[in-house]
């Protein structure tokens, strides 16, 4: 594990936390939370507009601009990125990367366009995965709409098209605090050679340890544990002994 990422899902300007990406418990102000996790030495921050796909646009550009004035770690902006112009705006606002799901499903060639202009490292392909028997199906619009695509095949295609990393969110586990879908993480990890970040399900420190023992993922995105003050960034890092020492510093 190389990166501990704070995930902030945002609706109408407020950080919210749902279950299975649905629902909307209000957590707090995005800028204040970003500053708080930055002060705790989080490795990265992911700001996701959770209703952008619904309304077809993102409201995060201004928020990214504000956050980047005081938060000096990498920031990824997700939700409602539709076009190369949206990527330009996100980067101009101070984002380092964009996380894209729906627009890539609708027009996969957008991945090549983003990668060729801004580089692969700028494109986080976001996959919302729902278990379907022995396999997983990719969803869009925050876990609401099935795409008919197999997650593993889709992950391979996204890599070929130039995605720099994959953010794999288990819709089944998201918000449940019952642990990661480790089989999903391992299957995606085995299918591609680009970095993979797991999201969805962490409710206690043991869940991170389990993920760390059974996979070699590059990153993990954490929401509930941080938002509900169940753990600090340092405590989360200490739960990942393959990467961090007991003081939370990278080995």
């Amino acid at each position: 594990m190389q990166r501990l990422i704070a995930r902030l899902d945002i609706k109408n300007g407020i950080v919210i936390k749902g279950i299975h990406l649905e629902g909307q418990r209000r957590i707090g102000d995005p800028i204040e939370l970003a500053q708080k996790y930055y002060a705790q030495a989080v490795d990265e921050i992911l700001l996701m507009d959770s209703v952008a796909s619904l309304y077809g646009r993102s409201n995060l550009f201004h928020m990214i601009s504000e956050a980047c004035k005081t938060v000096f770690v990498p920031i990824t902006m997700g939700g409602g990125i539709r076009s190369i112009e949206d990527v330009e705006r996100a980067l101009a606002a101070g984002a380092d990367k964009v996380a894209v799901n729906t627009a890539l499903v609708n027009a996969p060639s957008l991945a090549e366009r983003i990668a060729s202009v801004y580089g692969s490292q700028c494109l986080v392909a976001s996959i919302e995965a729902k278990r379907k028997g022995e396999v997983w199906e990719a969803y869009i619009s925050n876990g609401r709409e099935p795409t008919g695509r197999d997650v593993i095949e889709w992950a391979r295609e996204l890599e070929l098209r130039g995605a720099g990393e994959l953010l794999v969110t288990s819709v089944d586990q998201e918000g449940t605090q019952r642990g990661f879908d480790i089989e999903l993480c391992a299957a995606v990890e085995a299918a591609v050679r680009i970095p993979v970040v797991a999201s969805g399900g962490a409710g206690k420190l043991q869940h991170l340890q389990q993920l760390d023992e059974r996979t070699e993922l590059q990153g993990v995105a954490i929401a509930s544990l941080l938002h509900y003050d169940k753990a600090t960034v340092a405590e989360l890092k200490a739960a990942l002994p393959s990467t961090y020492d007991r003081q939370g510093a990278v080995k």
Partner: protein
Amino acid sequence: MIAVIDYGIGNVRSVLNAFEFIGAQAVLTCDPVELERADGLVLPGVGAFGEGMRRLDTRGLRAPLTRLARAGKPLLGICLGFQMLMRSSTEQGQAEGLALLDHAVVRLPVEARLPHIGWSRVKAAADAPPPKLLAGLDNELFYFVHSYGVVKPKQSIIAGLAAYGGCEIAALIEADNVFGTQFHPEKSGEAGLQMLRNFRSLCL
């Protein structure tokens, strides 16, 4: 005043924010007159090497940048900006760089996953004088995001090294007034801000 070079690519906003945060005056510009007046230049950048060079050329920046750097003005290249200081890159075929430094940029020859995204320790090179930009910062963590870089660096201008996937990467170069970091100081928390303070003090 520090001029952050505007060539229509990259996370320039964060670089400007970081300078503002440390109390330095920084402007985003591609005007050669402004570049001439600046105490120091920053060439930021993310993305593809060829595209970056094309955009520099479209704005007519290659000649003034090269001239000002050779005349002794402090210049800091960040990430892609660092790579563009070099002679060439193999990214998307072969592309020529600014050639202020005689190194080639290649795809990192590692088994580990690429891009290399994450925090790595930067150590001062053993056989070189202590890096000016790392004053008070030896062995700190900095944020990297790249698939290409300068590897197996031997020359004495390599001031700082990082490791990824068993490969030694040039993390920091210092050649008189020409500086470059493969990592992003503007995204590396307090250590990165301190590095930018160090650069600024070299510009005064």
